[in-house]
């Protein structure tokens, strides 16, 4: 009896191999390694049925003319993942309390090992994500990739843009220095300038009539829980539609095709 589970054990030699010369150690290692890998993947695939989905998702056909501009969406998503990862680790040291937020942020920068790097990645990554997002949006617009049947994906993208900007607004307060404080005061009051609902929206953001004890915790909860969750879910929907509908060829490819047809006539 072996302790190794059955699916991880090397398969018994095939009948054809059994008759021939004994395999060299190198051949045996190659054979066992390949079988072990196939065994684990096969185990997972048999129980999830993921491979047809993954094959369709990862190896889907792309139109002729697909170029580097088509990577901007993936780049934006990578920026989001990088923000999520660095954000989770920043949350281990950050304290969302009005009297301690600034000192904890300064502690991260000045004392925590690699704190300056991680905080810097989060701070600059935020800008990178916004820039990439708008480049991706511009590519979609200029290439006409928002047209039928992809309108819904454009709408999801616009919602993602708004959510990303909300991440910028809520995250800006967290260092709690003079710049963040006054920028947030002004930002909330811009919301308050909307008629009828504006002042209520400002009260919701501040958690009261004045910038108070709950304002920072509110912004922190929105910044690290609510909005990232929504963004992750909507990225899932966005990708599902991309895989389902496929990508569009650049507009000049269509023009070439038309001229070809004319030549054929």
């Amino acid at each position, binding site marked *: 009896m072996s302790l190794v589970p059955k699916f991880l054990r090397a398969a018994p030699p095939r009948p054809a191999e059994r008759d021939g010369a004994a395999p060299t150690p190198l051949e045996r290692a190659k054979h066992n390694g390949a079988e072990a890998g196939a065994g684990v993947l096969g185990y997972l695939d048999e129980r999830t049925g993921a491979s047809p989905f993954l094959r369709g998702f990862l190896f889907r056909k792309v139109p002729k003319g697909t170029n580097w501009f088509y990577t901007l969406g993936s780049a934006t998503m990578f920026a989001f993942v990088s923000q999520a990862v660095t954000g989770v680790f920043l949350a281990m040291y950050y304290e969302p309390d009005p009297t301690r937020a600034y000192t904890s942020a300064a502690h991260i920068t000045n004392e925590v090992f690699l704190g300056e790097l991680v905080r810097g990645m989060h701070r600059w990554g935020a800008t990178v994500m916004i820039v990439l997002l708008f480049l991706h949006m511009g590519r979609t617009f200029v290439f006409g990739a928002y047209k039928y049947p992809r309108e819904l994906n454009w709408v999801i993208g616009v919602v993602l843009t708004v959510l990303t900007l909300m991440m910028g607004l809520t995250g800006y307060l967290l260092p709690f220095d003079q710049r963040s404080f006054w920028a947030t005061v*002004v930002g909330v*009051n811009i919301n308050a300038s909307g008629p009828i609902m504006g002042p209520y929206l400002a009260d919701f953001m501040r958690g009261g009539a004045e910038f108070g004890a709950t304002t920072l915790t509110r912004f922190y909860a929105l910044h690290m829980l609510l909005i990232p969750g929504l963004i992750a879910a909507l990225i899932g929907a966005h990708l599902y539609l991309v895989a389902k509908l496929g990508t569009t060829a650049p507009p000049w490819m269509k023009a070439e095709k038309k001229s070809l047809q004319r030549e054929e006539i």
Partner: protein
Amino acid sequence: MADLPDKHKRKSRYTADRNVPGAFEGETVTRRTFMTGGALAYGGIASAMFGLPALGFALGPMFERSAPETWQDVGGEDDFNPETYVPVVMSLVPSIGEAGKTTVYIRRFDPGRDAERNSDLPYVAISTRCAHLGCPVRYIQASQRFVCPCHGGVYDFEGKVDGGPPVRPLDRFYTRVRNGRVQVGDRFSVNSELERFPHPRDPSNHLDGLWQYLYPARPST
């Protein structure tokens, strides 16, 4: 033609007439439909039981008064005069330390200059919160004006708008004298005639003409 089914004929509302298996006499809703509806209703009730309290928890501060009435001692009566403003630091939100403090400019009420408005208040306490977007204004004695650093709002000696984007004069605070000490109370907003609005409005909210009805008083103030 007679044996073709009539598309416009309404189906009977009784399950027995529609040949649903196991139909009861007089039954109109199938048990499948009833169970589906029941499961959805239970799910909805269960979601509402945690969803609505959570929503109320988050939205609550919009509907309760969050700034309690306070009076803060800012100095003796001799510390202030009618000619110029004296800056005083007071605490608006005591629980959050430095971030909850604000500067207030105070001078004695001048019957000649201040005419009829707010004559029940012995001192004029001007809030430094700009009526445009809430940046801190400062008083410049040489020009007798309040100036905002953010977007160029300018106010005259009484806090009325002199230029720039602000939509109404600077807010003020209630004042009183107790045992020879000047005390500063709650904030109130004023319109361009310096008429008092007891519920302070957010910066950027108009208080004149028809505009004022677009920015009603909120329960939180």
